[in-house]
């Protein structure tokens, strides 16, 4: 029962991220949903695998490794992507005069 709930919540969370990706208008806004998709759903699915098979089993450890890889590498990738988008759109990572004036 707990496993089914974890699977349902994990799949739903990932689908919400996919719909959010479609609904947003700018690349940075879409990136937030892509970043959320690498953290929430893999963790829930790994938790479901661990609840069913146990943590210190082949399946459980593999699921944890996948969730950790996605979370850590996904965060690094989101940061690198955001920097590339910023450089591509504004030409620099430094804040513009308008951004300095507004404190952002």
């Amino acid at each position, binding site marked *: 029962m707990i*496993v089914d709930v974890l699977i349902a919540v994990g799949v739903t969370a*990932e689908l919400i991220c996919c719909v959010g990706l479609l609904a947003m208008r700018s690349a940075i806004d879409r990136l937030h949903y892509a970043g959320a998709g690498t953290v929430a759903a893999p963790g829930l699915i790994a938790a479901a695998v661990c609840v069913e098979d146990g943590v210190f089993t082949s399946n459980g450890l*593999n699921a944890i*490794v996948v969730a950790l890889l*996605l979370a850590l590498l996904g965060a690094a990738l989101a940061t690198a992507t955001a920097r590339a988008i910023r450089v591509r759109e504004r030409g620099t990572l430094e804040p513009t005069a308008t951004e300095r004036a507004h404190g952002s």
Partner: protein
Amino acid sequence: MNAWLIGATALLAGLLPCGWVVLRGQLTEALVALELASTVVTIVLVLIAQGFDRSSYFTVPVVLAALSFVGTLVFVRFLGDRWL
């Protein structure tokens, strides 16, 4: 058919919005959609491996999680340097 395989099948629907953005969006938006699509496929493979109860199948999502990061990072580098 168990809950794992049902979840994997349902999650495949998440590739449709990603594919739409890849086809219709700008280059930066397509790259972001590619990132999310690779995450979705990785989770689907985990669900399939558990659904068939084959621990050897878990090798595929582990390798994909690492390789999709490297592959997307190459696109990010090209994008930032305006080679694309």
